[in-house]
């Protein structure tokens, strides 16, 4: 069963002008996926995000960027140089019939062009301007230069990722701008609801720096209470404790026969104890429990446990899991209530049973490549008005004719003139 349907989605009827670069593309992708008509507005010649790899068959080319494909599926595409007077005129015309403008320019850039919220509001009082930046529209860092990694760093997640004896690390798929983008989509929706009530738009000021911070769970609150900052833990889970005992590290990633698994073997509330007892029981059945043979998980008091004691507890776990495959561990986990998951790679996910049983992966046609590519499908399933992953990202200027000639009524001669002047 595919997710495809024709033009009917939760956000059908809404139009988005998407001026964002890599810092905000995910926002427009979300709105497009839920059915909005998202028009990606690129500078003539193509958006710089088309140069971001990886590339189809590793051929770097602005119409082959897999990054671009992933983040711009289901959007239409026009070219427009809003730094020209004609370009701004055309943009203003488009704003008249748009519901959202999404952008990720440096704070002040849109205002500098006469396209800030105050001006857009005059053209269309219902317009929602979603501005996604690394740090927000104002403040001491607002004009800081950034990349995904530096925002991941300042937002606190880099310090929490990696091995303690190596530098703080980023993920090999950079994350910070995705956090900014999804919070941008969320903020846009909150503004849309307000507009439903009042007819008025507003500006949505999104900070990727703040969005990234959410990912640290409650480490900020933990610091507020205990004055302990957790750090990158390696294959362990860190628990902050006040005073002399210091941070407790519990190993959670284990090498297994065919890869790695993440397993919780610790005390605490009911679920944790069930998990720990089930693992211990399994080890006992095979005569491999070692120190855990007589250990009572009810006595596990993470507030008092020393690191040495924890290391004694987990010592038998390391060789034990090495004798088991991911499948064996997960089968036992499902039966016995063990908190476990394999450390799946993207290949494992794409070939595994669960996501395929749910028809999650969607084949998208790329006629220019003579090929289809698999994309992630619905982030949330809805039987009625479902998400769409349907159409490949636009080619450069692909919908110029549709939008400029057919919708705005610009004459072919005018379009030629604009093209030769580099306006579109």
């Amino acid at each position, binding site marked *: 069963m595919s997710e495809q349907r024709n033009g009917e989605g*939760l956000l059908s009827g809404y139009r988005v002008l998407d001026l964002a670069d890599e810092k905000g593309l995910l926002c427009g992708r979300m709105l497009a996926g839920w059915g909005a008509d998202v028009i990606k507005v690129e500078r003539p010649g193509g958006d710089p995000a088309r140069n971001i790899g990886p590339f189809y*068959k590793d051929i770097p080319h602005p119409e082959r960027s*897999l990054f671009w*494909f992933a983040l711009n599926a289901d959007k239409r595409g026009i070219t427009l140089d809003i730094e020209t007077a004609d370009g701004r005129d055309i943009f203003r015309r488009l704003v008249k019939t748009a519901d959202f403008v999404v952008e990720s320019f440096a704070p002040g850039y849109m205002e500098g062009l006469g396209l800030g919220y105050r001006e857009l509001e005059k053209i269309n009082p219902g317009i929602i301007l979603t501005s996604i930046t690394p740090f*927000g529209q*104002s403040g*001491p*860092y607002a004009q800081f*230069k*950034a*990349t995904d990694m530096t925002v991941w*760093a300042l937002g606190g997640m*880099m310090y929490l*990722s*990696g091995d303690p004896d190596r530098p703080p*690390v980023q993920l*090999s*798929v950079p*994350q910070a701008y995705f956090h900014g983008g*999804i919070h941008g989509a*969320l903020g846009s929706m*909150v503004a849309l*609801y*307000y507009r439903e009530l009042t007819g008025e738009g507003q*500006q949505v*000021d*999104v*900070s*990727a720096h*703040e969005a990234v911070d959410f990912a*640290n*769970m*409650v480490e*900020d*609150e*933990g*610091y507020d209470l205990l004055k302990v*900052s957790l*750090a990158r833990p390696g294959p362990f889970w860190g628990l902050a404790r006040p005073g002399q005992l210091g941070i407790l590290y519990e190993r*959670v*990633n284990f*090498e297994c026969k065919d890869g*790695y698994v993440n397993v919780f073997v610790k005390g*605490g509330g009911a679920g*944790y104890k069930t998990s720990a007892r089930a693992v211990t029981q399994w080890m006992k059945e095979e005569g491999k429990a070692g120190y855990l043979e007589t250990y009572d998980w009810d006595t596990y008091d993470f507030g008092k446990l020393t690191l040495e004691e924890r290391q004694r507890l987990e010592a038998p776990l390391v060789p034990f899991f090495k004798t088991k495959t991911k499948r064996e561990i997960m089968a036992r986990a499902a039966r016995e209530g063990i*908190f476990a*998951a394999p*450390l799946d*790679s*993207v290949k494992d*996910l*794409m070939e595994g*049973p*669960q*996501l395929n*049983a749910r028809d999650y992966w969607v084949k998208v046609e790329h006629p220019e490549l003579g090929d289809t590519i698999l994309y992630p499908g*619905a*982030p*949330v399933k*809805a039987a009625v008005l479902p998400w769409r992953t349907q159409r490949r990202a636009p080619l450069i200027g692909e919908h110029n004719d549709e939008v400029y000639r057919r919708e705005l009524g610009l004459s072919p001669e005018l379009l030629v003139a604009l093209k030769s002047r580099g306006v579109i």
Partner: protein
Amino acid sequence: MQTKQVFEGVKIVLFSWGAVASQAARELALHGATMIRVESHRTPDAIRFSSPFKDGKPGVNRGPLSTTFHTNGYNISCDLSKPKGREVARKLVEWADILGDSFTPGILAKFGLDYESVRKIKPRIIYYSTCQQGQYGPYAKIGGLGVQGAAGAGFYYITGWPDRDPAMIQGAYTDFVAPWFLAVPLVAALIRQRRTGEGFYLDESQYEASIHFLAPAVLDYSANGRVAGRQGNHHPAAVPHNAYQCMGNDRWVAIAVTTDAEWEALCRAIGRLELAHDPRYATLLARKEHEEELDALVSGWSRNYTAEEAMLVMQAAGVPAGVTSTCQDLLEDPQYKHRGRFVTLHHKEIGPMIYRSPAYRLSKTPARLVKPGPCLGEDNEYIYKEVLGYSDDEVTDMLAEGVITTEYDAPGVKRS
């Protein structure tokens, strides 16, 4: 006079545990929605047992995990396994516009609170279910916490170094990716409910939502057969690009040079302008060939400065740079202070603690953090009587029967 909040009058009931269902609803509660979570002292939310805790002492109401995700919300205790408890649940369904569920698929059905049953009571309800791997499928019933979600959804595999085993991201990563994906169609469905009176059902698999943060790697595997692995901090199109150690204990600055102009600016900033046009380093390709050398060059410089100084020197020169913030840094972060990210609220058992504002600011209708997420059953009096309309006698009876649970119903507590 304060402006009306966006979601004032919108009513949300949560039959939930964990971080995802609550955080999706929290975004609405921070903008005025009324959010009631139904819980039981007999089976409290498992995350109440996870540290950190105030003073390091465990307790169901002593940790941020018990309160943070329910900012502005209400909490009632109710035993759904009793018929009278299910009557309470039914009243809440009649009251609510939105119902959030995050239990293992099938659990709420046992209490007659599955979507099909609920929509008969309240056809216009928006019902969202969120769990690790979705409501159906061969792995649907495998439970797990967010940490397992992050592992299973592919995030640890790509964290760390090419010559090392996968490393962790401290924190249950996918728990803090999935809620936002859920909140987007949730608000869209709410708009539709307002217009048409129609209900809606959303089934979120936290894996399916979170994998969107890996989309480029998905396409790379599909198109090129390449399995994204661990890469450390290098970047295919930027050199230098890494975290560099600074003065002090485990202090680092992330620096990313993305253009030749930034390279020249960095060289000038560190007093080595002659390297800018040195053919060994002048172009990206040249710098790529000497990446290790350049990492050593930059860290030779950065170790003489604090992380903040190094960042500010780079920023003044126009080079992207950022301190790898610790939690202490985050609480003291001047940009966060400017935006009012952390608001201190006073919790009954924890006392004063920071609570987080949304990552977006609406210019006309900003969020308001007004009360901390409540203790278990804290709002029984108000909700049972004022909102659900039970009389004093009825409430007394429900307490006596254990329909309204109290701390004496907690596992391991002996009733006297």
